[in-house]
């Protein structure tokens, strides 16, 4: 189906003519879709077999994304709507979507979370500049975090932001870093309760009670086993040096309440 820019009122009920099936976070996910954006986006993740769950997006789901996103193609909005539904279904598998640019470094994943426009991609570029091939991309925008056998992993996904930084990998999560801008580079570990508002603003909160409960429970579990840091940084490469040294222990500061 051809993609055309739309406004909400031009959306029509589709036929659900493509069943896309992808490997995501160790699961097989079916996506019943109408536009060709999702098949192109998810090409590297296509898989066979029996799906663990299937999501279907209808015109009202797409229209809902439209209000939040401004001008966009119907295919792009369908992709956003599908990912929202996938995120809801993932809760049944101890998994959720986090809005974070996520890298791997010496075998651990580090998720840099912040509102859009803060400079997550810019900071990741500094890591690449300073640390070269020691840095690997997991996902530039919306990885999945999932507990498997008690270990929290960051999984690559096809939803990777405008840079398209993604690899279909899973890496144990080492830490979450709440990124902010600063004139000077400063980094400190923060307590779980300090992390709560920052983390909760970078996830999708379901609007049903069971989904909201499960999301809050999973956030609690994540915070109980994952160190969280606050990093205020500028665009100098020394920001990536400070961050890496702090995260990997060389200069790891004690937890201060």
């Amino acid at each position, binding site marked *: 189906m051809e993609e055309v820019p739309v406004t909400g009122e031009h959306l029509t009920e589709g036929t659900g003519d493509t069943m896309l099936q992808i490997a995501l976070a160790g699961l097989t996910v079916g996506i019943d879709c109408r536009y060709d954006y999702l098949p192109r986006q998810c090409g590297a993740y296509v898989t066979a077999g029996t799906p663990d769950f299937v999501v279907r997006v209808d015109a009202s789901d797409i229209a809902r994304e439209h209000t939040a996103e401004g001008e966009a193609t119907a295919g792009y909005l369908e992709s956003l709507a599908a990912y929202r539904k996938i995120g809801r279904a993932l809760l049944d598998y101890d998994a959720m979507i986090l809005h974070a640019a996520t890298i791997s470094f010496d075998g651990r994943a580090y998720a840099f979370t912040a509102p859009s426009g803060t400079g997550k991609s810019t900071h990741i570029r500094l890591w690449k500049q300073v640390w070269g091939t020691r840095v690997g991309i997991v996902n530039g925008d919306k990885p999945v975090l999932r507990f498997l056998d008690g270990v929290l992993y960051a999984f690559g996904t096809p939803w990777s932001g405008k840079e398209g930084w993604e690899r279909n990998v899973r890496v144990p999560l080492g830490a979450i870093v709440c990124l902010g801008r600063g004139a000077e580079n400063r980094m400190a570990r923060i307590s*779980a309760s300090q992390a*709560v508002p920052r983390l909760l603003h970078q996830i999708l*909160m379901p609007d*049903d*009670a069971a989904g909201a*409960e499960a999301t*809050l429970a999973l*956030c609690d579990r994540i915070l109980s086993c994952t160190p969280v840091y606050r990093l205020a940084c500028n665009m100098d490469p020394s920001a990536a040096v400070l961050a890496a040294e702090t995260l990997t222990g060389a200069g790891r500061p004690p937890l201060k309440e």
Partner: protein
Amino acid sequence: MKIKSGFVVRKVGGKSVAVAVGELSKEFRGMITLNDTARLLWDRLQQDTDEMELAQALIEEYDVSPAKAAADVEEMIGQLRAAGILEA
């Protein structure tokens, strides 16, 4: 007075967090974090109650002075009312 129904409340990272769900989620986006005192009052406000009962609950739980309890209740009620979370 009582809190409108349609909130999910749960401890996350040692902090109580309230999120609106269902129809109410269209009205209240985002989330409300509650300290221990606010959580106690929040829980009491699930049923119809008044300032006197709420202050009494604080006095029993935290052994605070009646004046302090009344002030805390007044502040919390004021915030909830301003946010449109209370009914009646």
